[in-house]
C-alpha cells in the first residue's frame, strides 16, 4: 500500500540520517555531512514513482534520494564510514554515492553540476528508445547557477524525459533564499522555457508523489520535462556542526511541527499501528546496518589510485 511504502521510505531516511548525525557527533565519521532530516517527503514521494532503470542525480544533500531510489543503507553507511564495502569502496564519502544498478548517476559536491548530467541520462533514454526517465534533485540555492538555466533550455528544446526537482528549503548554506532569488517560486524559472511546473508542499509526501507521478508520466510518454518545486525545510544545520546563527529556533520549531512523517500519519487514517511498527523496524535496520558498516574493512590504502581510468594504462 502506497502510504505505508512512503512512510517506510521516510522513516528509513530519518533513521539513517539521525544515525549519521550521531556518528558524526561522536567522531566516528570524517568530512562534511549534509543531512536532509525534515525533507524526507521529497525523496520518498518522487522516487516512489521511479523504477530502478530510471536515472537520478543529486547533490551534497543526497542520502535521502539515494535511499528512496533503493540504495542499501548498509553500503551507504559503509561509504560514510569510509569502508571498502561502501558504494564507492569507501573512497568518496557522503557526497558521491553512485550506483549503475539503481540508475544513480551520482550525488555531487558541486552545486548545480548534477543537473546537466541528468540531461545526459534522459538523452540516452531518448536516443536508445528506452522508457526510462531522469530525475535531478537540486536546492533552491542552485537555481542561481547558470548551468541550471542552460539545462532547462536544453531539456525543453529536445523534449527530454526529465524531471527537475527543486527542494526549496529556504537556505543555501547560511544565507536565506531571499538573498539568492527574486522569484517567489522556483517554478517561475521554468516558464520562459515553456516547461510545465508545479509547486507543492514538500512536507506532504502524498502531494509530492502525485505531482511527481504527473511529471514522470509526462516524461515517459514523450512530452518532455517538468519542474517541481517542493517547499520544505532542513531541521539540521547546513552541515553537521553548523552553528546556525542565521535562523531562530522558533523558525525551526515551526517546521518541526510539520514533520513529514507526522503529516502523513495525519493524512491517512488507521495506520498508526503499522507506522509505529515501521519506525521500530527502521530503527532496527539502521542499528544493524551501523554495526555491520562499522565492522567492515576500511577503504584499502592500495586502492588509492584504482579506477582513475577505466583502461588503467596511464601512469
Amino acid at each position, binding site marked *: 500500500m502506497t502510504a505505508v511504502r512512503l512512510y517506510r521510505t521516510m522513516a528509513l531516511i530519518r533513521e539513517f540520517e539521525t544515525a549519521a548525525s550521531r556518528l558524526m557527533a561522536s567522531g566516528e565519521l570524517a568530512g562534511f555531512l549534509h543531512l536532509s532530516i525534515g525533507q524526507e517527503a521529497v525523496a520518498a514521494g518522487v522516487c516512489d514513482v521511479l523504477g530502478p532503470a530510471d*536515472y537520478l*542525480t543529486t547533490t551534497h544533500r543526497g542520502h535521502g534520494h539515494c535511499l528512496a531510489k533503493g540504495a542499501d543503507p548498509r553500503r551507504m553507511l559503509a561509504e560514510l564510514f569510509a569502508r571498502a564495502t561502501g*558504494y*564507492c*569502496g569507501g*573512497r*568518496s564519502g557522503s557526497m*558521491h554515492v*553512485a*550506483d*549503475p544498478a539503481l540508475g544513480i*548517476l*551520482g550525488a*555531487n559536491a*558541486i552545486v548545480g*553540476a548534477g*543537473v*546537466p*548530467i*541528468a*540531461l*545526459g*541520462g*534522459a*538523452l*540516452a*533514454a*531518448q*536516443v*536508445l528508445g528506452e522508457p526510462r526517465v*531522469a530525475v535531478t534533485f537540486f536546492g533552491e540555492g542552485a537555481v542561481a547557477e*547558470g*548551468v541550471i538555466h*542552460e*539545462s532547462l*533550455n*536544453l531539456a525543453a*528544446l*529536445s523534449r527530454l524525459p526529465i524531471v527537475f526537482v527543486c527542494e526549496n528549503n529556504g537556505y543555501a548554506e547560511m544565507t536565506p533564499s531571499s538573498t539568492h532569488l527574486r522569484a517567489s517560486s522556483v517554478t517561475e524559472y521554468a516558464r520562459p522555457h515553456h516547461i510545465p511546473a508545479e509547486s507543492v508542499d514538500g512536507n506532504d509526501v502524498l502531494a509530492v508523489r502525485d505531482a511527481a507521478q504527473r511529471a514522470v508520466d509526462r516524461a515517459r510518454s514523450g512530452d518532455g520535462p517538468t519542474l517541481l518545486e517542493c517547499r520544505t525545510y532542513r531541521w539540521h544545520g547546513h552541515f553537521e556542526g553548523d552553528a546556525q546563527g542565521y535562523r531562530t529556533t522558533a523558525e525551526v520549531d515551526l517546521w518541526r511541527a510539520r514533520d513529514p512523517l507526522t503529516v502523513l500519519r495525519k493524512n491517512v487514517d488507521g495506520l498508526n499501528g503499522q507506522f509505529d511498527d515501521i519506525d521500530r523496524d527502521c530503527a532496527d535496520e539502521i542499528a544493524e546496518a551501523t554495526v555491520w558498516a562499522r565492522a567492515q574493512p576500511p577503504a584499502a590504502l592500495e*586502492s588509492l589510485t*584504482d*579506477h*582513475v*581510468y*577505466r*583502461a588503467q*594504462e*596511464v*601512469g
Partner: protein
Amino acid sequence: MTRRKYWQAINDALREELGRDERVVLFGEDVGAPGGPFGATKGLLSEFGPTRVRDTPISEAAITGMAVGAAMAGLRPVVEIMFLDFLPLALDQLANQAAKSSYLSMGHYSVPLTLRTFCGAHLGAGPQHSQNLEAWPASVPGLKVVWGSTPADANGLLKAAIRDPDPVVVIESARLWSTRGEVPDGHVVPLGEAVIRRPGTDVTLVCWGGMVPRAEAAAAALGAGGVSVEVLDLRSLLPLDVPRILNSVSRTGRLVVAQDATGPGSVGSDVVRIVATQGFGALRAAPELVTPPFAPVPFPPPLAHAYFPQESEIAAAVRRVMPKEIAAG
C-alpha cells in the same frame, strides 16, 4: 589509402564511428544543419538523422554535462566546443565531473565521452580565439588529451578517442585545417603513443599539433646544415609517451621543446621536467623550451607571427643546445 584534407579526415572519422556504433551521438553548436562551424560535421545530420546529430544552443557547460551523463548512461557522445578558448566554460563538467566519475564510483561508471575542440591559433582571430590551452585538460587525472598533426592522425586519434572507455579531449588545429595527407583505411592511432616524424641523432625536438610542421621545417633546415634533429610528435598529451621521450633523449643527449602555448603550466614544461628528473644522466646540455612571450595572443598577423615560435627561432634553440663547433656548421 586516400588523400584527404585534415578536416575531411575528421569528417571521415566521425562518419565511420557513427556508422559502426549506434551509441555514438554528436552534438554541439552548429554541428548539425550547418555541418559544423568549419565543416567537420558536413553531411552527418542528413546521413544519421536528428536523433544522433544535434545542433545545440550556446551552452558549453550544459552540453558538456549532458555528454557526461549520456556517456555514463551508455552512449558514446562526441561533443564539440567550438574553440579551445571556450574550454573554461566546460571545465567544471570536464575536470570535476567527467574526469572523476570513474574514480568516485570506484569504477562502477566510466565516461566514454569525446570532446572535440578547435585551436584557432594562426587564424588571426585574436586573443580569445587563439589560445593553446591544452595543458588545462592535460593536467587532470582521469582525462586523456590528443592532438593530431596530420590528416591520418586527426582521423586515427579521433576514432581511438571515440572507442576509448575514458573521457578524451581531441584538439584540432585551425593551422592544419586544409593540409593534405594520406589516410590509410581503417586507421586507428592508439592513445598514448608519440611518433618520430624525422629520426635524428644530435637533438630531440619535441612538438605537437599545429607546431609540428614548423618543427619539421626547422629540422630539415638544420639537417641541411649538418645538425641531425629527431622530431618527436607527441600526439598524446595525456598520457605522455614518457618511454619514447626518454628513449630519444637517451640517444641524442639534447632536448628542445617547441610549443605555441606560453611557458608556465604547459605540456612543454612537463616534458622538460620529466627529462630533467628521469633522464638527467642523459642530458649533455641544458634543455630548451621554445614558447611565445608570456602575453595574450595579438590579433594582427605580423604580431601573431612574431608571437608564435617560427622555424628560425626553433632552429636557434636547437643550435644553442649543440656544442659551439657543430652548431655553427
